[in-house]
């Protein structure tokens, strides 16, 4: 499984969210692959799941890809709850 972390510029919040996601995946013993990109690049990338902050994902959610969003990108409890259904 490939998870694409998306943010506005591709170098700030996506990096921080990627860290939190990797922590959560480790906890869940998942071998999902994680990478990050800015909103513009992400639109032309393929992944099994696109994850980002709510405002970002709203810009990406056109029905052509699987998306999930979190309110607080530093909250591992929220990230875990959001990710778990997709990992099964």
């Amino acid at each position, binding site marked *: 499984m490939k998870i694409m972390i998306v943010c506005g510029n591709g*170098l*700030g919040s996506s*990096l*921080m969210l990627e*860290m939190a996601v990797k922590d959560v995946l480790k906890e869940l013993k998942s071998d999902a692959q994680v990478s990050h990109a800015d*909103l513009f690049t992400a639109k032309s990338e393929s992944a099994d799941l696109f994850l980002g902050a709510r*405002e970002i994902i*709203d810009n990406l959610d056109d029905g052509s890809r699987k998306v999930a969003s979190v309110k*607080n990108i530093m*909250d591992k409890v929220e990230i875990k709850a959001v990710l778990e259904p997709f990992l099964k």
Partner: protein
Amino acid sequence: MLTEILPAYSIRFADGFADWRDAVRVSCQPLLERGAIEAGYIDAIIENVEKIGPYLVISPDVAIPHARPEAGARAIAMALLKTTTPVRFSDDPDHHARLLFAFSATDNHSHQRALRQLARLIMDEARFAQLQAATTAEAILELIASQPE
């Protein structure tokens, strides 16, 4: 390391701002003074928020004003503006923040260690509470300096 790009004089305090745009400008002022960014970099941050939304508020009370390297970043640098009343990036309380970590990066990689350290500090509840309560640059620097990656 975070301490290398966030010197004491880049940590500043303010009461509050009626307009989030002014808060972003003031948060970037130390970067401008250090020559780490061009003035256009600040405009790029504001334009991004107006276009995409207040995504720069990454978690409760924390915003990270920044733009793409090509928007006018000359060096890796960070500044912290801590306000007494929250800066409102929208009417939604999820978009209110009192800690504004403005930063500039010259490529996609070189700032990563510092940002990772910042993320660890935010995810550590006890240390983050200390950061929220800190009232001096010295206290903040002490917290940052002792933050493991």
